[in-house]
């Protein structure tokens, strides 16, 4: 095995080819790598550009636009109250006869398309199966939309909805993913019911997808290993709700040019436009999707979940329609993190090398297949790259349907489940081999220079293998250890209380490899300010501010001199949308390139005005200046001269789009300090520490905010969040039944940023948004193992589970 200090000296037979396709050195523009003293606007604390309107209550979210529509109707959806069956009759007569009711729609209405589609806001063609209709005659979970009402106000719409009578032919349901593939299990789909491009579907067995990939020969490696050095573990994770602050909300209307417009809470305006166009047979150009402020998405709004219902209601009612989900719908009918069961097996040789990793995931897709296979794929392809030099790796998965709500995209996208299995497993292996869990992982962990193949284990060929060009994971470990006091832990005085520390290593991606596109345009005003039009979608994370900083760093103005308009399908260039941690990395690079395009024109004008060659000119502090003579001209002077000049005139414009196969992983180390009471199983979190390598942090406090918010979701996943059902009937209807952590549930959190430079990212940046959602479950399981010697493998980790495990070992 190579030593940690010389990762680039490995003798790899495939290395020559790898160096060509996945070069270690990246041909990076000179301006992309800066030292702190050269930075004006990046890696600096910059006020979030919507902060003032948020704290004054002036920020407008979709529902706040109601004033613009005097005739606005409000919608209510009628949903299945049985988990499985056929709708045989819908009696809407009472609702239709009510005063103030404008429209009632059912699956049999002309305005309601009868086509199959996928609600997943993915690139075209969506990898998710086309398996749903806008309104459903075959209902497959409690919450499936059957009909909808539009009325003069929400009170009337609700009252009318309650009068709609639905008759069903009930069918047996299947609720356990473990038995869903049994021969005698009730079947959710006939194969003809679905257009599915995913691998391995067998709808006769409720199997949405099966996938597998292997590097080397895992069975042979395990066969060769000493039996005691082969460790197998099993893991289980529950449903998790996004708890998205702003419920899904859409306003659908048609303007005076007969173009259909949507103000909607979405992460994917351009995908939504395309999907609506296809579903309703309308030209793409005749649909406009506008994203106002978004009350966060976390993946739940990477779904065209309600826009088609709002549109059909609008078409029938003939007036603008607002459809706003209730919290109960969010908790029962919308979208969730897929529950999973996982099995992990590894072999370690006599000299301590990891020779094989074998991971299996069974994902419960629920009633429909949106993001079913792709989320399950990420269970392996996100955490396994932490250990890229293991020669034999296998990853398999099954994605099954049950009569429960559908899983979908949720921040982390399979990686939270996968990290629980992989990182708690690695800790267990180390402890069983009597190794320090951190030292053991250090021996195998990813390093700069590595070529990661297991990130592409499910793909043919090596196109999507990944060269690691920035990796601060070792420093994340060091700084996290210090912060948590790893080597210096004081035990409580009472003998029944035990303190322990656990760590999990974490990786994510920066966008979807080879399936991203961002675009931007920047225009200069007379006064030296700029308008940036960018497809990238700020869902509340602050990427509009990030874009303004990147633009300012290139153009030499201040971030507040860049007015950002993001993601309106009529007004901005294209973007795939805010998902897969792509916005800073992909859309941010499009912004940087657009700004550089504008800068070329800027310098040309500077050269003319200063009478010096472009080669000696630079921008900064609101000026173009000569690095040779020190002469300068302000951006405002250039702006006026370019637009109103005597001899020559132009508007200074820049534009660009950006796409890449690269998706450099950000890295992190999550530490948890816990005290466990061995009598009761109750535990107390003393502290969380998270160290992150996201390349260069463009706006450090925003990055900290991402980390702390991600840890919040991860803390919930580890300790308190899950949905309960009885025979398919939801028992979790709101925040009161769901365990979303409150201010008083959070332990102290220490956040550490470890800077590296990612040459493929804008000014060295990688992603951050999803990374911190992955760490608390494995780190807490590991900390409890450290404290009291038992292994908890099921989430959420409750006192009851700990007590049971402790009793079991007695």
């Amino acid at each position: 095995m190579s030593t940690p200090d010389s990762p680039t000296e490995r003798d790899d037979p495939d290395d020559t080819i790898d160096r060509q396709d996945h070069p270690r050195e990246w041909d990076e523009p000179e301006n992309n790598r800066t030292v702190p003293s050269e930075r004006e606007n990046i890696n600096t604390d910059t006020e979030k550009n919507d902060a003032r309107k948020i704290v004054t209550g002036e920020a407008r979210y979709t529902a706040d636009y109601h004033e613009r529509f005097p005739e606005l109707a409000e919608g209510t959806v009628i949903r299945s109250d049985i988990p499985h069956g056929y709708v045989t009759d819908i009696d809407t007569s009472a609702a239709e006869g009510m005063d103030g009711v404008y429209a009632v729609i059912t699956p049999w209405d002309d305005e309601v398309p009868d086509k199959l589609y996928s609600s997943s806001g993915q690139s075209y063609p969506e990898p998710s199966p086309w398996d749903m209709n806008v309104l459903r005659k075959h209902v497959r979970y409690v919450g499936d939309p059957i009909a909808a009402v539009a009325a003069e106000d929400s009170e009337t719409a609700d009252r009318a909805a309650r009068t709609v009578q639905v008759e069903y032919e009930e069918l047996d349901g299947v609720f356990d993913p473990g038995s869903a593939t049994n021969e005698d299990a009730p079947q959710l789909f006939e194969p003809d019911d679905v257009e599915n491009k995913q691998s391995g579907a067998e709808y006769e067995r409720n199997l949405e997808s099966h996938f597998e990939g292997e590097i080397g020969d895992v069975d042979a490696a395990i066969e060769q290993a000493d039996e005691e050095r082969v460790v197998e573990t099993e893991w289980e994770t529950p449903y998790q709700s996004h708890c998205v602050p702003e419920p899904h909300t859409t306003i659908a209307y048609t303007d005076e040019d007969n173009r259909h417009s949507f103000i909607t809470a979405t992460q994917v305006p351009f995908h939504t436009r395309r999907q609506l166009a296809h579903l309703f047979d309308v030209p793409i150009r005749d649909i406009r999707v506008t994203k106002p402020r978004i009350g966060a998405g976390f993946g739940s709004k990477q779904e065209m979940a309600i826009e088609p219902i709002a549109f059909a209601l609008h078409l029938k009612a003939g007036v603008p329609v607002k459809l706003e989900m209730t919290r109960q719908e969010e908790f029962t009918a919308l979208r969730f993190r897929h529950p999973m069961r996982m099995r992990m097996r590894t072999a370690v040789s006599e000299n301590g090398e990891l020779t094989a990793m074998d991971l299996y995931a069974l994902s419960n897709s629920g009633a429909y297949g949106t993001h079913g296979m792709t989320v399950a794929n990420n269970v392996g392809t996100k955490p396994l790259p932490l250990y890229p030099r293991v020669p034999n790796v296998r990853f398999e998965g099954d994605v099954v349907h049950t009569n429960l709500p559908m899983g979908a995209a949720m921040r982390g996208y399979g990686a939270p489940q996968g990290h629980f299995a992989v990182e708690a497993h690695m800790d267990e292996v180390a402890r069983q081999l009597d190794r320090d869990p951190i030292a053991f992982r250090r021996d195998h962990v990813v390093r700069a220079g590595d070529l990661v193949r297991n990130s592409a284990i499910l793909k043919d060929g090596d196109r999507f293998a990944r060269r690691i060009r920035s990796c601060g994971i070792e420093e994340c470990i060091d700084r996290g250890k210090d912060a948590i006091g790893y080597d210096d832990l004081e035990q409580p005085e009472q003998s029944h209380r035990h303190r322990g520390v656990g760590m999990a290593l974490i990786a994510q991606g920066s966008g979807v490899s080879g399936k991203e596109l961002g675009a931007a345009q920047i225009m200069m005003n007379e006064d030296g300010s700029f308008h940036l039009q960018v497809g990238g979608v700020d869902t509340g994370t602050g990427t509009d501010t990030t874009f303004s900083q990147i633009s300012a760093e290139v153009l030499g103005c201040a971030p507040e001199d860049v007015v950002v308009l993001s993601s309106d399908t009529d007004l901005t260039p294209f973007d795939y949308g805010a998902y897969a941690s792509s916005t800073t990395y992909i859309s941010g690079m499009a912004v940087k390139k657009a700004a550089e395009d504008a800068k070329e024109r800027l310098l040309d004008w500077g050269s003319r005005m200063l009478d010096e060659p472009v080669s000696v000119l630079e921008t900064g502090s609101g000026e173009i200046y000569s690095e040779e003579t020190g002469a300068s001209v302000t951006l405002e002077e250039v702006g006026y001269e370019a637009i109103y000049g005597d001899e020559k005139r132009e508007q200074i414009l820049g534009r660009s789009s950006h796409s890449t196969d690269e998706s450099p992983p950000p890295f992190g180390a999550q530490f948890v300090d816990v005290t466990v009471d061995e009598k009761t199983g109750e535990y107390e979190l003393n502290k969380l520490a998270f160290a992150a390598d996201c390349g260069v942090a463009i706006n450090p406090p925003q990055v900290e905010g991402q980390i702390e918010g991600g840890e919040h979701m991860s803390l919930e996943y580890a300790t308190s969040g899950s949905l309960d059902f009885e025979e398919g009937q939801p028992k979790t209807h709101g925040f009161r039944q769901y365990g979303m952590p409150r201010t008083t549930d959070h332990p102290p959190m220490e956040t550490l940023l470890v800077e590296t430079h990612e040459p493929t990212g804008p000014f060295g940046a990688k992603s951050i948004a999803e990374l911190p959602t992955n760490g608390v479950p494995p780190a807490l399981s590991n900390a409890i193992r450290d404290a009291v010697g038992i292994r908890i493998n099921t989430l959420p980790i409750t006192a009851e589970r700990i007590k049971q495990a402790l009793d079991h070992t007695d």
Partner: protein
Amino acid sequence: MYTMQVDLAINDQQEQLDASKSDSLLDVLRKQGRTGAKRGCDTGACGFCTVLVDGEPEKSCIVPAANADGSTVETIEGLGSQSDLHPIQQAFVDNFALQCGFCIPGMIMRSKALLAENPDLTEAEVREALSDNLCRCTGYKKIVRAVLDAADGVDDTSTSVVADGGHLGVSNADGACGCCHDGGDSE
């Protein structure tokens, strides 16, 4: 469907608003354009709609409009403006204590009531007082810090606070909240 009128003193302005019997205070505020308070659950479980009714923080989605008749109501619209922020708003901006922002108006109104009652706060007291207001984006750390900073700032910027209503009188006397350093986020 308006069937009654409610008289409210909203942000120092006397107003008579139309309401239906089933309307909540949140409904009437939002219908007449005060959209700062947000609808997050309609069951009083998230706190996004928090406003002050006769000085007390209330979840306006579960206050029947009829019951609010005759009350004094303070909403986020009555605090500072974008160019002249109230100290609590300023502290939220300065501390990056917001992301999507949907919970923030409610969080700020709750904090205003808290600081009016007791500006000399420990971190634990802030956490306890804000525990009915959910936030999904921030992990609460920067929000708690902002409220403690606002409490501290009361002393330094007493003039502007007094000008803004004058509820906030006393600062955190020792200034040692222990929250303002990485890692020392809790008591």
